[in-house]
């Protein structure tokens, strides 16, 4: 298939997200934490919506959580995924509060199921991957 040569969409980081991706390549999941009120937020954004501070620190998350929902992608909407379908995407309630979207490895997920995640390297990036804890 010619589609094998189509690269996946790039993980282009921004000034806001650069620390996230640097840590992800080292296998760690970082969440933004407001330096003023300590509220956690994800995905990275400019302001804390509680106290409107721009000041953030980055907190390492456990990568543990529970299945919130999931889907199995059968149709490749981008040609780079043609050889991968079907694949399962899982939405996870992280122990720290925010959610993460990741690829799923294993049998059909069950809502509320306890999971653990890790970053997996691939050609031009890393995937957050969850499996049963």
């Amino acid at each position, binding site marked *: 298939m010619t589609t094998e040569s189509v690269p996946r969409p790039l993980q282009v980081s921004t000034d806001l997200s650069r620390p996230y991706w640097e840590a992800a390549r080292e296998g760690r999941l970082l969440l933004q934490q407001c330096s003023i009120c300590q509220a956690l937020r*994800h995905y990275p954004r400019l302001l804390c919506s509680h106290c409107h501070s721009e000041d953030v620190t980055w907190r390492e998350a456990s990568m543990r959580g529970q299945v919130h929902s999931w*889907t199995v992608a059968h149709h490749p909407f981008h040609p780079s995924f043609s050889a991968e379908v079907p694949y399962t995407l899982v939405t996870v309630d992280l122990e720290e509060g925010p959610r993460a979207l990741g690829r799923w490895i294993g049998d059909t997920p069950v809502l509320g199921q306890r999971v653990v995640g890790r970053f997996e390297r691939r050609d031009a990036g890393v995937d957050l991957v969850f499996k049963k804890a």
Partner: protein
Amino acid sequence: MRLYNRSCVTGIGETAYTRKSTRSAFQLQIEASLKAIADAGLKPADIDGVIPIGVISGTADDFIENFGIPDLRFSALIPHGGASPVMALQAAAAAIAGGVCQHVLITFGRNISAMAGNNRAGSRIHTMPQFHYVTEFEHPMGASAPAQLYAPMARRHMELYGTTVEHFGEVAVACREHAILNGNALMTRPITLDDHRASRMIADPFRLLDCSLESDGGAAIIVSDADRARDARHRRIFIAGVAAGHPDSPGSITQRADITSLGIAKAAPRAFAMAGVTHGDIQVAEIYDCFTYAVIRQIEDMGFCARGEGGPFVSGGRLKLDGALPTNTHGGLLSQAHVWGLNHVVELTRQLRGDGGAAQVPNAKVGLVTGYGDLGDGALAILTRE
């Protein structure tokens, strides 16, 4: 309420809905716009407000130049995807009630066939600016299309409330039945619940027949000051209530406290209160149907039934013409065409005029239209006939 009955939908226009159109998006938009202007009994130069839907074809300046509009007094861009047409009704009603302008053209055109294959609507949502925070995290992992982003909402609804594939199928079958009656619909072959279940899986639980169409075409409406609307060609169709609402975390479903919640939940009480009607008064509904599930969920969030009861609500053909809530009497985005839901506003106007043809809901006087876009932004309008 200050917007109640201050403006009317006076003109409607649509092109033929097709695939592989040879006309540009702007040509389609112009064609629909001229039809709507003529339908209102106006001339192009009478338009003094323009709201182009999306930023994919003509701009307000394009309309000034092509129509020779001498004094455009109002324009707006509303960046909320499929919620934009009904939000545009709100913007037009507000501008008119404030005395800013008198005749607002709300207009859409798209030639999706002419866009690169990888750039189809179903694939490119993550390239839209309002999703910039999400794109780098979700798109490279293969969560890139609306079907893939909405599927987890639907799955959770199924798991929490027992919503079934058959419930989704009810929406698809009702829309298809109505499309067949329309005369300007892409899908004209009857389908059954079994056909729906047998259609290929796109993003579990969404099958092909749960997903809206990709199509080429244009649609337009004119919203006029209610007093000026007395001079229009058709009976007055009032904007009795209109409201918009946004979910928390609007740009990211993943981060939404309740991924099944929608902006329309906040908007619906405002629109019903403004219009002074109750759910039982709604005789016909045109509900934004990007996916079958979205119809079920909006019915719940608007208060037609309790959360979790949307599946049973639509069962047994209750969305069909002879059902409890005739819905998407034109076939909707699922079976007529996808013009971001402006066709829903056109169809509701047609129904309230009594021009619904074979799909006419008898003596329809009060109807509702919704918009839903950008992962959960919502709007609804309640229109009434004079």
